[in-house]
C-alpha cells in the first residue's frame, strides 16, 4: 500500500508569493492534518480536516488556508509568504478524527528568500 504522498518535495519562493502544497493520504484514511516543522523543533499543528470538514486550526495567521477534496486529498495554501514561513511542511493521515497514530508524509521543504 502506498503511504502518505506529498508534493512537491522542495520549493523555493520569494517573499510575497503564494504557495500550494499537496497531500494524498493513505487509502482508507479520512483525516488529514498539516504540521509545520522548523529546524530543531517539534511539528506545530496547522490544520486538521476530517471527512472534508475543518476540524481544527492551530495558531497560524489567516494567510494559511487548507481544504480537503472528496477523494480525501488535501491542499495547504500559504499567501503573502514571509521569510519565517521557511520550514518543512508535513502532512499526516489518520483513520479517525482523534488523530491517534498519525502517518506522516516525507514533507515539503519550503524555502522563502
Amino acid at each position: 500500500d502506498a503511504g502518505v504522498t506529498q508534493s512537491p518535495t522542495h520549493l523555493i519562493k520569494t517573499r510575497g508569493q503564494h504557495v500550494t502544497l499537496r497531500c494524498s493520504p493513505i487509502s482508507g484514511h479520512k483525516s488529514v492534518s498539516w504540521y509545520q516543522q522548523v529546524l530543531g523543533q517539534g511539528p506545530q499543528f496547522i490544520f486538521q480536516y476530517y471527512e472534508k470538514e475543518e476540524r481544527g486550526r492551530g495558531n497560524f495567521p489567516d494567510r494559511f488556508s487548507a481544504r480537503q477534496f472528496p477523494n480525501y486529498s488535501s491542499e495547504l495554501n500559504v499567501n503573502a509568504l514571509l521569510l519565517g514561513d521557511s520550514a518543512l511542511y508535513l502532512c499526516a493521515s489518520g483513520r479517525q478524527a482523534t488523530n491517534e497514530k498519525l502517518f506522516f508524509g516525507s514533507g515539503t521543504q519550503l524555502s522563502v528568500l
Partner: protein
Amino acid sequence: GQQVMQIPQYQHVQEGEDFTTYCNSSTTLSNIQWYKQRPGGHPVFLIQLVKSGEVKKQKRLTFQFGEAKKNSSLHITATQTTDVGTYFCAGPRYNQGGKLIFGQGTELSVKP
C-alpha cells in the same frame, strides 16, 4: 497554554549505553504518543499509551505513562547506531483530540 516539554534536548551516547528521554505535559493527557524522526526524514509513529501507569515494550525500547497521565518516558537499552534520530512525544490538545501537541524532541546520537 497547554505545553509538552521534553528533556534532554540532546543526548550523545556510546554504542551499547542506555538512553532515556522524559516528556512532561502541563495538563493531563488522554493519551501520549511517541514518534521517531531520522535525520532528514519524517516522524514515524512508535507507540501510543492510554492507561495511567502503563508500560509497553518494543524490543529494546520501554515506554512508560505516568500515574497522573502528565508525564512519560522512553528508555532504550543498549543503544545501537540504528537508534540515531530525534524522539518526539505528543499529546492531544485538551478537548480537541484532533490536534497533537509535540514536544521539542530529544536528539540522540550514538557513537560506534
